[in-house]
């Protein structure tokens, strides 16, 4: 056991400490005083910032399933170095979303009810189950990393042997609930502004989560490194950027075809509260990054790629917040702006996320190469483990 070393105080660590402390205090207030006293939620606006944050967290965690599918199902082994960072991102993202959901619930003590009280007609029910099951699958996918740390190789072999169905299940569950977040709004055609309402909401949510999830991973490969070397060679990073570009292009085609087809486009002519929000989301998050990513020079430059991916994430965040908040406002009669406590809780949870990533990636072998598959080697590792009966 190594001696306890007091962690060095850095700007980011101090900021995270402040945000987490403030978030915890805000959360205590929320639970003791109730939603009405601490949030700006109301009968007119029963869903606010926290729901938007859930959409965001789940979307950023989408890399978990896309990269696992690419590497383990489609055998694109070149991308193996980013599997673990993507899994960690997904695992943290989902855990935090569950945490926010519980804080958001009016009756957090009833959070377990969907497990036993079923309503299969409800999108919310489907999402709850998908998120629970997918978080379980993520734990199974993540377990080998933890077991490796403790040199427990036998369970790793068991998990490897039965991992295929779980990986397929993970991809399916992700597809379902990523799109279902869009389906939540299918039943409010009279409320959600036509610039965002569409029968294709589930499809649009799914396509955009692919772009955002991969952008998140690209950013991670740009920021993080493995033993001083970048996680992915620039050529492979540029390939990921191409996939993002394709997702963005597909998204734009579907979105605009749908807007033109159903007459939503008539709101684009004038500058209103809603159309400005729409233009921000589409230009910053989809059009400009698409143009940037189509240029091979920018795709291969760190700065170009970084800019484009940050824009994708900003536009993605804007899209989810617009769907969850702006599109339901009727400016200036009925608007919503989150309270300080809502914002503090959200920032605190975001800070927990970043801190958790940094802590866990320092402790567990996240950036080390995955050990060779057991069946490929001559199984020398088996000698390291105690006999089964011991």
């Amino acid at each position, binding site marked *: 056991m190594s001696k306890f070393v007091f962690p060095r105080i850095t700007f980011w660590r101090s900021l995270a400490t402040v945000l987490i402390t403030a978030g915890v205090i805000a959360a205590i207030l929320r*639970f*003791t*005083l*109730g*939603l*009405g*006293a601490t949030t700006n*939620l*109301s*009968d*007119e606006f*029963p*869903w606010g910032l926290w729901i938007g944050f859930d959409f965001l967290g789940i979307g950023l965690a989408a890399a978990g399933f896309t990269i696992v*599918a690419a590497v*383990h*199902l*489609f*055998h694109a082994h070149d991308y193996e170095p980013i599997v673990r960072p993507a899994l960690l991102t997904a695992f943290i993202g989902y855990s935090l979303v569950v945490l926010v959901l519980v804080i*958001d*619930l*009016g*009756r*957090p003590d*009833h*959070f377990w*009810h*969907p497990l036993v*009280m*079923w*309503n299969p*007609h*409800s*999108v*919310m*029910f*489907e999402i*709850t189950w998908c998120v629970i099951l997918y978080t379980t699958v993520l734990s199974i996918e993540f377990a080998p990393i933890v077991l490796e740390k403790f040199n427990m190789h036998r369970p790793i072999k068991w998990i490897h042997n039965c991992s*295929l169905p779980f990986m*397929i*299940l993970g*991809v*399916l569950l992700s*597809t*379902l609930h990523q*799109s*279902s977040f869009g*389906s*939540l709004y*299918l*039943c*409010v*055609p*009279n*409320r959600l502004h036509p610039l965002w309402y569409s*029968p294709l909401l*589930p499809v649009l949510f799914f396509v955009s989560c692919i772009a955002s999830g991969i952008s998140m991973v690209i950013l991670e490969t740009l920021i993080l490194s493995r033993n001083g070397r970048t996680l992915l060679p620039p050529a492979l990073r540029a390939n990921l950027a191409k996939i993002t570009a394709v997702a963005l292009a597909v998204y734009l085609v579907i979105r605009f075809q749908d807007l033109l087809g159903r007459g939503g486009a008539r709101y684009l002519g004038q500058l209103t509260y809603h159309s400005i929000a729409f233009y921000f989301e589409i230009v910053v998050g989809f059009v400009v990054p698409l143009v940037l990513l189509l240029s091979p020079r920018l795709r291969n430059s760190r700065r170009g790629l970084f800019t484009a991916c940050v824009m994708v994430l900003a536009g993605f965040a804007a899209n989810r917040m617009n769907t969850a908040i702006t599109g339901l406002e009727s400016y200036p009669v009925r608007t919503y702006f989150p309270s300080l406590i809502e914002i503090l809780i959200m920032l605190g949870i975001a800070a927990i996320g970043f801190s958790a990533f940094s802590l866990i990636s320092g402790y567990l072998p996240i950036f080390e190469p995955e050990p*060779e598959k057991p069946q490929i080697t001559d199984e020398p590792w088996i000698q390291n483990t105690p006999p089964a009966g011991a």
Partner: protein
Amino acid sequence: MAQMKALLIDISMCIGCNACQDGCKAANHLPPGEEKRLSPTAFTALEEHDGKWARRLCQHCEEPTCVSVCPVGAFTKTAAGPVLYDAEKCIGCRYCMQACPFRVPRYEWKSTRPRVQKCIFCSERLAKGLQTACAEACPTGATKFGDREELLLEASKRITAEPGKYVPKIFGQEDVGGTSVFYISPVPFEQMGFDNRLGKTPMPVLTMSAMSKIPNVVTVGSVMLGGVWWITNRRDEVAKHEGSQKPGPAHKNQDHQ
């Protein structure tokens, strides 16, 4: 089958006396006192629009959106018409409030154990064979309680008898698939604060069009993903096998390890 009950609200006959709200509050043991809007303590409220009153309350839809969206099934549509709510099940996700086409459900925001509150169509009184408290309290007959089909007939009779007095529409007959509360009005419904974008399709149908694709996504998706895995895995194995046959690449593999 139990006869579906309903309310017919004739906006031209309402004098804004608020007796309906008083009666409702008494019957539901809510704190007395006039309220101008729906609230956790006012299951019905009179909204004034230019000297006329639109009485707001849960419409008790034929295909209620709240029943379909609730993840734990806290809402139920009963055979006699009322849409009921069970606070013991409710987790407080507030999707019902977000989804209700009439923006009816209200939340006890001030409580730390909040419930959703809305009109329950006096279901206990109905079970005893009584009419709803609001209909009983109404002094002018602006709210009339009765069997759904009979009230629809009566509404169209009133409109045809005095075509100049009413706009030719029974609100609630077909809107969002039909409700249990009907309105007839002397002025266009938009002027009384009614949403004219609702349409005749029940909102749950819109959701089901997406939800019904789930079984296909699961079956087709798992077969496809399994297939892709098999093909790419096979490709890897073949490459490995071919590599081991030729001396050159085999050396390369060893160097790799």
